[in-house]
């Protein structure tokens, strides 16, 4: 009796499954078509940054390479992203440690305030910081820009580190201390290694957040300074040249590639480490 019922259910299931597949495919196309178009068009030989393609060429990358403004913007973005990643990671780990491990007055308020920049629209943050520096009569500078990026990236790093920190149970630290390790030694030998995945993930995320930030950077960059995204924007003002496609492709490779490489590196390192602990144990 259960057989025919199961059969009818499974044919219905098959239909649902097919539908799910089609919809999933459409969603992916919707999400990735612009990216694919940018990458494909960056190799277009034509003068114009659109379809149809007239041939395969690397000339736009060459043009890009010779564009001093682009190279300069790239370097600035890279430096800002690096500094943001390092500072944000340090701050984020310490903040998360405090929020998870200690009880202090205003703890829940601090927890909310730290996350706030991720919730407030970037435009408002951008204007807000501008008004602030005007009020204290400080000119816009690279320092302010970096500070702004730290502000933007910190919530995400704190969230990642906090989630991981909760998983690093306190008894590991208690066990280490009962065995004779001081607080600092315990942090070095136990807490930090267990937090490492969060440290790496936080740093990579902070890097990409800073590297491809556009709207806030528009407000904060000092006169005459362009970051990669603002450079692209200003190039788009004149025309959609294929050079922009090439630059976009470089951006995509950077923002997708760096976390990917980072993730792979972490895996390789941890695997190597496991092997060496096994060897020293021999």
């Amino acid at each position, binding site marked *: 009796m259960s057989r025919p019922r199961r059969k009818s259910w499974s044919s219905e299931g098959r239909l649902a499954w097919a539908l799910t597949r089609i919809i999933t495919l459409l969603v992916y196309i919707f999400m990735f078509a612009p990216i694919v178009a940018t990458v494909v068009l960056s190799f277009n030989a034509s003068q114009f940054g659109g379809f149809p393609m007239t041939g395969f060429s690397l000339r736009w990358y060459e043009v890009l390479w010779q564009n001093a403004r682009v190279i300069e913007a790239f370097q600035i973005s890279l430096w800002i992203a690096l500094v943001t990643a390092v500072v944000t990671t340090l701050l984020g780990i310490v903040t998360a440690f405090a929020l998870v491990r200690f009880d202090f007055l205003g703890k829940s308020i601090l927890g909310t305030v730290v996350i706030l920049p991720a919730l407030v629209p970037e435009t408002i943050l951008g204007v807000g910081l501008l008004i602030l520096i005007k009020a204290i009569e400080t000119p816009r500078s690279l320092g302010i820009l970096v500070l702004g990026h730290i502000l933007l990236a910190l919530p995400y790093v704190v969230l990642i580190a906090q989630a991981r920190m909760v998983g690093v149970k306190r*008894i590991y630290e*208690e*066990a280490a201390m*009962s065995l004779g390790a001081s607080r600092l*030694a315990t942090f070095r030998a136990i807490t930090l290694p267990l937090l490492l995945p969060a440290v790496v993930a936080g740093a990579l995320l902070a890097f990409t957040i800073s590297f491809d930030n556009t709207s806030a950077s528009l407000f904060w960059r000092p006169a005459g300074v362009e970051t990669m995204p603002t450079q692209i924007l200003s190039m788009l003002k004149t025309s959609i040249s294929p050079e922009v496609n090439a630059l976009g492709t470089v951006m995509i490779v950077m923002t997708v590639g760096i976390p990917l490489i980072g993730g792979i590196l972490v895996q390789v390192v941890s695997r190597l480490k496991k092997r060496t*602990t096994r060897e020293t144990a021999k």
Partner: protein
Amino acid sequence: MPDAMNLTESRPLAGASPAPATAPPAVEFRNVEVAYGKFVAVQDFSLSIEKGSFTTLLGPSGCGKTTLLRSIAGLVDITHGQISIGGRRIDDVPIYQRNIGLVFQNYALFPHKSIFDNVAFGLKYRNVPKAEIATRVTRALEMVRLPGSERKLPSQLSGGQQQRIALARAIVFEPEVLLLDEPLSALDANMREEMRVEIKKIQKQTGITALFVTHDQEEALSMSDRIVVMNAGRAEQIGTPQDVYDRPATKFVADFLGKANMLEGKVATVTGSVASVTLTGGQSVQITSPRQLSVGEAVTVVVRPQMLTTPPPPGASPLRGKVVSSSYLGGRVIYEVDIGEPALIRVNTAISGALAAEGAAMELGFAPADCVVL
């Protein structure tokens, strides 16, 4: 048995061990109090633990037993009194200088370190030379019967194995005290019994002073030299397993260890060493007590289910009641009998003849000496 029922000896405080005056006790609590804000977790706790002994803090959750253990470890600050290890006061010594071995309920092995590095951890921070670390780790792993597991990670071991590694890690540097915080609770039943024997064996072998925390009376009775029964932040009774089981000092102890029957009543007559007590429901029982009882005194008669028999032993006045339930255990049976008292009486007896049916009338009783009078 009545002569052995010296209650005063197993009363709190008086039971603190008579350690020889020359050697200081391995661990000593003096009037220790731990309070979290207004909540007092432990109050006026005194205990001295003899070197090489196995002492258990037994009590329900929230009784303060874990807090006491953590206060020796230095994970909890005491608000009053003092704690000494080997005669050295340690209240202000940070945890990492206390030289204690700590075993947790959830093992707490470092997940990112190999078994070797886990066990070697305490030795590393004591500046033991590398070659010696290796030999001592090997020896410790042999002791917990897991030799050759050095290169594994904790996640590759079963719960029982992880707890043995945790034990090895805690004893390898020969601490002055081994603190065990419910180390068996996370294990399944079969494993628990095995580990119980194992821990006891290793403790004997090494001669280490052990302080064990549990809520499981069976663990406490089977492993300990001495048991401290705790309730609501205080020591209810301190004594050997037999002391606390056979001669509970308080109703709490009698109830917590083995669910004793407690009969409330008034002393009706006293003839020599035997007194007759009239229970609330009107029936009476004969008892003996080392304590001088006076007529009219309100008493609680504590009787273990195993001490009750049906029919009653010769000479004992019978208690009459109705069987409410029976659980057959194979060879023995547990009856719950209504004898007109506020609580049902539990009888755990060997089966002679047929089982009594539910609702059947039953006569039961106990020898006057087989009870404790509170």
